[in-house]
């Protein structure tokens, strides 16, 4: 490995992005539960309170609704808050402020205000935290005009997309899969941004397009590596943003490969896979399809506690391999 390539974990990349944002702009500050001396439930804020002080790294009471509203109010009046939810599940407590206020305020007021708030949501299963601390609710927020919703899948993107989110004049919701926090990868030093609304082709291929989000991107890449040995050449599209969705990258990829598999952790029904499938079916890419579109999503159940049940709830690499192989070989 090139010694010059610096690696950070996904959590470190987010922390570095927040520090850079605070260095660059005195309006940027952090709010959330136990993000100060505790360092955040997942140690994402870490020691930032020591570097920036308790006035810029603000521990809130356990008040998700009120806290989200305070962040919205601060954003509307000139500040640039980054609000951390301890778990994405707790968005349910704050939906009023997110959906009725943050998303709609600019529109309702005829463009007289902007709401430059960033909200971070540690999401997903795999930690044994059971049904109320393991959900993937990004599609709920993806349904709301006025919000932008992103799911960085790598440490590089976690930093670059957070810095893009802080610079964005509109509310940006960041869903961070908790199992990614310890993932290591190349993260450039200093300030850079990764655009919101642009998907990324992580691997080029010609037999099948896998559109994946968040942690499923790496699983799709692992599956693709295995299937390469069988002569199956898979293209992996990392959607990165679910609102606004990058339709063109998906359409172009499907036109090239003629097959589409959507892989995401959230409950399968009425999820991002339905949206991606529909956008392809509605586009010129439909005529290029050689096989039915297939979705692999979460089971129609809350996330269970038992580790074997928990794993079985969401798509795993063998599931992706089997689905991809069947699609390419025409079994489906």
């Amino acid at each position, binding site marked *: 490995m090139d010694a010059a390539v610096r690696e950070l974990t996904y959590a470190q990349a987010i922390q570095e992005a927040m520090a850079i944002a605070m260095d660059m702009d005195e309006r940027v500050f952090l709010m959330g539960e136990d993000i100060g001396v505790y360092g955040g439930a997942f140690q994402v804020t870490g020691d930032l309170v020591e570097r920036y002080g308790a006035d810029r790294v603000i521990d809130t009471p356990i008040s998700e*609704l009120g806290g989200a509203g305070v962040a919205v*109010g601060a954003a509307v009046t000139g*500040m640039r*808050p980054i609000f951390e939810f301890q778990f994405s599940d707790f968005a349910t407590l704050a939906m009023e402020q997110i959906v009725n*206020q943050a998303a709609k305020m600019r529109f*309702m*007021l005829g463009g*007289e205000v902007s709401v430059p708030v960033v909200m971070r949501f540690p999401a997903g299963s795999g930690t044994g935290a059971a049904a109320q601390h393991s959900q993937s609710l990004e599609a709920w927020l993806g349904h709301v005009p006025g919000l932008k919703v992103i799911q960085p899948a790598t440490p590089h993107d976690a930093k670059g997309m957070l810095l893009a989110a802080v610079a964005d004049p509109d509310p940006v919701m960041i869903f961070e899969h908790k199992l990614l926090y310890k993932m290591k990868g190349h993260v450039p030093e200093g300030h850079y941004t990764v655009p919101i609304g642009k998907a990324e082709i992580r691997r080029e291929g010609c037999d099948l397009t896998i559109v994946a989000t968040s942690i499923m991107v790496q699983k799709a890449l692992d599956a693709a590596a295995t299937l390469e040995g069988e002569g199956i050449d898979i293209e992996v599209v990392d959607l990165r943003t679910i609102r606004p969705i990058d339709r063109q990258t998906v359409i172009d990829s499907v036109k090239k490969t003629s097959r589409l598999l959507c892989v995401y952790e959230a409950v399968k029904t009425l999820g991002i896979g339905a949206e991606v499938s529909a956008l392809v079916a509605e586009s010129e890419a439909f005529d290029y399809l050689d096989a039915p579109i297939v979705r692999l999503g979460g089971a129609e159940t809350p996330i269970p506690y038992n580790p074997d049940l928990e794993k079985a709830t969401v798509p795993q690499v063998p599931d992706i391999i089997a689905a991809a192989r069947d699609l390419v070989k025409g079994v489906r």
Partner: protein
Amino acid sequence: MATARKAVVDSRANLPFVYRQYSPEQLRGVLHKMYLIRRFEEGAEECYMRGLIHGTMHLSIGQEASAMGICMPLAEDDQITSTHRGHGHCIAKGAEVSRMFAEFFGKTTGYCKGRGGSMHIADVAKGNLGANGIVAGGIPIAVGAALSSKMMKTGKVVVSFFGDGANNEGAFHEALNMAAIWKLPVIFVCENNGYGMSTSTARSTAVKNIAERAAAYSMPGVVVNGNIFSEVAEASFKAVERARAGEGPTLIESKTYRHRGHSKSDRNRYRTKEEIEDWMANRDPITLFENELRDFGFIDDHGIEAIRDAVAKEIADGIEFAKASPAPEIATLENYVYTEHA
């Protein structure tokens, strides 16, 4: 003891707060604005009945002294968040009725370019961050605005108006707690008009006075007669001073009454005709203030007539402006969802 001469010079010394604090011209201006609020809402109601305005609206007729009293000590760049019953707050904070009518008519010249209507009326330039269709929705936002004021050291004070119904929402409690622990320059103003839609506060609220809730958040809780302008303004003045001094928030409960129903669908089945008529005949805030001004020699009948005529003209002109203004193009439907990048 003060000399007799001093007493003559300070002839207003025994009058209620506002008559000592503000000039006669300012006080006549308050009466003008109270009439402007009343006539604006009557005008809006009439336009609604005639089918010129669609949707619904929540009228604050009977609550004018509360809106004016709270806003009296505020500076132009102080900020407010308001409620679904927010027309009075908007006018009290300095909005023009012509652009408010235009908003109700759904026109591009309206404060929200026809996207918000009555329930989201706002005037950001004058510090009104917007009415809100969600009960208690604006309270945490006001606390956030106050946090901005503290962090940016702008000296701004923020007022959050809400109704009695909001005091049973979680957002109210979360917001008051945060404002108190961070000593933010915010004033919580509960306009208690006795009913959350049809449910009386006696049936919905465990405490007799909503101001008692303040004790749970270690802030002053003040009850005022919301129909007496001077009482409201005095409480607001003290709360603003406290907020500007960095001493933290205050909860003011302004007890008042809405003459009209909750919204346009209300059949008034939960209160008696006698109750409504009593408030209208004996406790109308404009009549009370007008009588005081006249009794204390700040205005005469001629002056009152002049105010009423000027307001009538403003309202008529405002409605004409709204009628003549252009409607939004359908092609602009998706504007303002996101910030446009030039």
